């Protein structure tokens, strides 16, 4: 009767074989009868208007079907709100082809539809556009004086504004025994998932569409399409079974979806629009941000004053905000705090959530400032974190539902060999290289939203679950299947998970590390409800041993209902179906956080990161030779997929610290390295010894399953740990990212 739980087992991704054999179909790979292809034309100026757009030559070309511009596009929704997707910041959503106004470089201005993709792309080059240029502003550093407070909107729900000031920061800082301050800058970064954005729209007649879309939210895309094009929700089906990475870029419907749907409805045909790599740089990005910190501590290392200010870029039409400055007081319990968050609007597209938005930005500044504090106090950086350890989030004065960060520190330090660190900068060497050990803390919210799941058992005793949730390559449907398997007491083989289809029960956009907690809870609820329904049916059978039993007296195991007190008393679900002559038992259920209690505690995942760097000081070459990340993120459903998430985050952390940056030319107001040859992310040779520890953490408060999510926590602590290691190696404090040769010479 004992059964090894699936939760906690390292199951390989169920869709893995499909992906590695090329069987998995992505949004741009679905074929349809008489499919035609769209290619988008983008603005080559940054700000101004189109005075004339001549499509005559292009239209005459063989195989060209139609060219859509602002002059001839079909009418779409009138009101702003109809364009607002689930992740829209306050402001006015960008509307493709709305009019002749150019708001940013690379703005989509036309769609060529042709018999082949190549034909459409070729014809696009024959379109002649005349512009009226206007002066533009893209230089973030030059326009810092324009900073202002962000507008508030729905997005503030998951990204609250900075906490209110506490105590008297200036006074406390002035009187601190030691002070540490810094200015931190990073430039624009782009998500660059491997898979390009693509939508294949199948025209099913009379305002009915089936859409294969690259997205992190099928219902988000469905909502957008229905609202913008005035279609009924039930007539718009959005499907996205495989997503080749998104990292936040799929949290909003991108313009290829608008274009493909517009063309499909106008032409009454099946249409596919795929973006190319250059076009992947013409929508959201991580905004360039400048941060200022001032931390003060007493002589024992107790931090008593925290100041953190961030100014970030946004567009002229939306106030995209990140939660950058809220983290320090969540980690360190100072009584005097002052936090500010500002925006600088520029002539760019709106920034967009990108892996650990805000967190990876803010924690970089916080953890370097803490490292400097430790250095000035002559206290070990790890010791300083322990001195300032708190089980209470002082920014909200709430106790953490669980916080095993101390174990992260201790286990991570042990595995890394932190005790071998000579505290003196420049003191450790290997050959002609300087060695540096650095560490940092990581934190990320453990959020949870509302989701619905359908569970259906058929007469063969198998169960199918359904949710609109996507799996953006993280292993989502594998871990959801594991949860279902345990709840139903069934083997994985008998549980099917159908997902990534907007016609299935509601799931929110997949981001912010809240998906497993959100949908996982709904899976558990639906499976419990299914078990209860089966039990009721079974109890209704004549002469059933269950007639007098309660639901709690029963165990569900491998397709049998078994009486706990007498395991010989059992009935198979197949028998129940047979005796009652029914075909299926079905239930759809909702799970959401309890609004009365869920806000009573602070909820977060934590990490501790330890990094070794080797620095060739004469040449300015830095190598991350070793890194250990220990994570406390509640119950780890699948250690294998969870470890992959953390490793991916660590690699990205190395990239953020040492490699990647989108370069803007302010003469032209455009990005100059929009391809993977010049937008540098690490190659295999840059990645060495990385390891991950999951620390045991019990948390029944955060949700019934004790899940916190592992999407973002892998990256947040990496860049500051690397910068701190570089300081330890060289004695040079480098706050700006990425750390390139020139910063070390």
């Amino acid at each position, binding site marked *: 009767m004992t059964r090894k739980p699936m939760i906690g087992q390292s199951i390989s991704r169920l869709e893995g074989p499909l992906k590695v054999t090329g069987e998995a179909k992505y949004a741009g790979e679905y074929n349809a009868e008489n499919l035609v292809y769209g290619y988008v034309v983008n603005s080559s100026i940054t700000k101004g208007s189109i005075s004339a757009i001549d499509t005559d030559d292009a239209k005459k070309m063989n195989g060209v079907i139609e060219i859509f511009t602002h002059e001839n596009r079909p009418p779409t929704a009138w009101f702003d709100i109809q364009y607002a997707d689930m992740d829209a910041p306050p402001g006015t959503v960008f509307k493709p082809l709305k009019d002749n106004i150019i708001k940013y470089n690379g703005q989509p201005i036309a769609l060529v539809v042709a018999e082949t993709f190549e034909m459409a792309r070729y014809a696009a080059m024959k379109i002649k556009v005349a512009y009226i240029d206007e002066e533009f502003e893209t230089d973030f550093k030059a326009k810092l004086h324009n900073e202002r407070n962000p507008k508030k909107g729905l997005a503030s729900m998951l990204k609250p504004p900075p906490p209110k000031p506490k105590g008297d920061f200036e006074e406390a800082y002035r009187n601190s025994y030691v002070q540490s301050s810094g200015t931190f800058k990073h430039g624009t970064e782009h998500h660059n998932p491997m898979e390009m954005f693509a939508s294949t729209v199948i025209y099913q007649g009379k305002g009915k569409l089936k859409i294969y879309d690259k997205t992190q939210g099928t219902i988000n895309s469905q909502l957008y399409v229905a609202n913008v094009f005035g279609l009924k929700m039930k007539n718009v089906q959005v499907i996205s079974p495989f997503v080749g990475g998104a990292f936040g870029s799929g949290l909003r419907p991108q313009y290829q979806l608008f274009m493909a749907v517009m063309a499909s409805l106008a032409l009454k045909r099946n249409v596919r629009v795929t973006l190319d790599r250059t076009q992947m740089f013409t929508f959201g990005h991580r905004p360039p941000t400048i941060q200022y910190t001032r931390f003060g501590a007493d002589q024992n290392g107790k931090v008593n004053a925290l100041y953190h200010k961030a100014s970030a870029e946004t567009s002229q039409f939306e106030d995209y905000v990140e939660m950058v400055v809220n983290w320090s007081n969540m980690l360190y319990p100072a009584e005097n705090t002052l936090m500010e968050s500002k925006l600088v609007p520029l002539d760019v597209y709106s920034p967009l959530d990108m892996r650990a938005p805000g967190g990876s930005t803010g924690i970089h500044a916080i953890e370097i400032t803490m490292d400097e504090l430790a250095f000035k106090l002559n206290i070990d950086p790890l010791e300083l974190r322990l001195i300032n350890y708190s089980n209470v989030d002082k920014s909200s004065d709430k106790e953490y539902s669980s916080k095993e960060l101390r174990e992260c520190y201790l286990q991570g330090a042990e595995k890394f060999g932190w005790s071998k660190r000579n505290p003196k900068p420049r003191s450790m060497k290997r050959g002609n290289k300087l060695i540096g050990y650095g560490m940092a803390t990581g934190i990320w919210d453990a959020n949870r939203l509302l989701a619905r799941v359908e569970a259906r058992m058929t007469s063969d005793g198998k169960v199918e679950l359904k949710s609109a949730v996507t799996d953006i390559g993280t292993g989502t449907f594998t871990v959801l299947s594991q949860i279902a398997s345990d709840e139903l007491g069934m083997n994985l083989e008998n549980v099917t998970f159908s997902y990534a289809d907007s016609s299935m029960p509601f799931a929110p956009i997949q981001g912010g590390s809240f998906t497993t907690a959100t949908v996982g809870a709904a899976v558990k609820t639906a499976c419990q409800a299914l078990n209860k329904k089966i039990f009721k049916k079974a109890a209704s059978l004549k002469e059933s041993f269950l007639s007098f039993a309660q639901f709690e007296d029963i165990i569900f195991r491998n397709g049998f209902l078994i009486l706990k007190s007498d395991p010989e008393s059992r009935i198979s679900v197949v028998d129940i179906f047979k005796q009652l002559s029914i075909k299926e038992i079905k239930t759809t259920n909702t799970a959401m956080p309890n609004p009365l209690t869920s806000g009573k505690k602070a909820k977060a995942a934590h990490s501790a990161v330890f990094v070794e760097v080797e620095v060739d000081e004469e040449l300015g070459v830095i190598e991350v030779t070793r890194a250990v990340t220990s994570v406390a993120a509640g119950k780890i459903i699948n250690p294998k997929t969870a470890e992959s998430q953390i490793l991916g985050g660590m690699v990205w952390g190395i990239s953020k610290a040492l490699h990647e940056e989108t370069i803007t030319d302010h003469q032209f107001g455009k990005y100059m390295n929009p391809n993977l040859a*010049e937008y540098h992310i690490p*190659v295999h040779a840059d990645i060495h010894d990385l390891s991950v520890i999951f620390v045991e953490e019990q948390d029944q408060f955060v949700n019934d399953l004790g899940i916190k999510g592992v999407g973002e926590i892998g990256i947040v602590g990496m860049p500051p740990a690397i910068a701190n290691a570089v300081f330890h190696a060289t004695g040079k404090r480098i706050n700006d990212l990425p750390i390139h*040769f020139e910063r070390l010479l």
Partner: protein
Amino acid sequence: MNNFSYTKVSTLADAIHEIDGDIRNKIVAGGTNINDLLRYFITKADKLVDINPVSEYNSIVRLENGGIRLGALHTNADTAYDPIVEERYPLLSKAILAGASAQIRNMATNGGNLMQRTRCYYFYDIHTPCNKRDLGSGCSAINGYNRIHAVVGQSENCIAVFPSDMCVALAALQATVNISGPNGERTLPFADFHRLPGDTPNIDNNLIHGEIITSIDLPEKGFEKNYSYLKLRDRSSYAFALVSVATGLDIQNNVVKEARIALGGVAHKPWRVLEAEDFLIGKEPVRENFAKAADLILKGAQGYEHNSFKIELAKRAVIRNCMMALNPEVQRPGAKPSV
């Protein structure tokens, strides 16, 4: 990309005939760069002449003068891993393997390597002025983002750099380029093959249109005892050099008898300063002397807003690479580069 025709030829004579001295007809060998150039609408070809079936230039042969001949259609990968090259010209092997990625080296040819064009961001963006792409339109890089650009040999018309690693070694080894064309055959010393930008940055090299590189000759001397190639870049593979250095030293009785030092990533062509090499002759191979040579190589260097660091970095790279050349064993496969 525009519409073009495509033809395959199997003899050199056919290739020259098909090209017909017309600048709108282009040769395709490995195709690793021409593909980008066509797609980004920088090269507008009427006809692509695929010379891959021309078999006589697809090998490495020993020459009577003791040198070797690298076929123009031999791939970069096959050249780098050729036993003769590995044994006698390890500097070339190492430089090739520092370039591009394994996939690209498998396709790219030796002749094509000489013909690749700059990776200047502005050159590849048809919506920005660029004298190399559109002579007379101006240079966007001079006042733009110029971190990857030239610090020596540039002109006010162009500060682009030549991206090859292989050619840096070929320059140091004093290779010779063998060329065939409508008017017969000729040879160019490697130093005279590529050009500085001057007033005509649109012209990368001294090949006359209609001519084809058939092979590259290496002289007998390969500096296999004391050599080193050092490449500094933003990631460990698949990134062009910010600075690279090829060094070959002939040291006898602790005295430099001959020195070759060529730099990549800093100029419109592989950069050699004979004065610096001559300076080292007769001197002890020590850091102080290499530092003086480095100063001579970078004499008159001029940086821009984002690339001034390259001048100091290049000097340090020259010194380090000369020191590494004293102990080339550290560069053998599997060895950790360290001095």
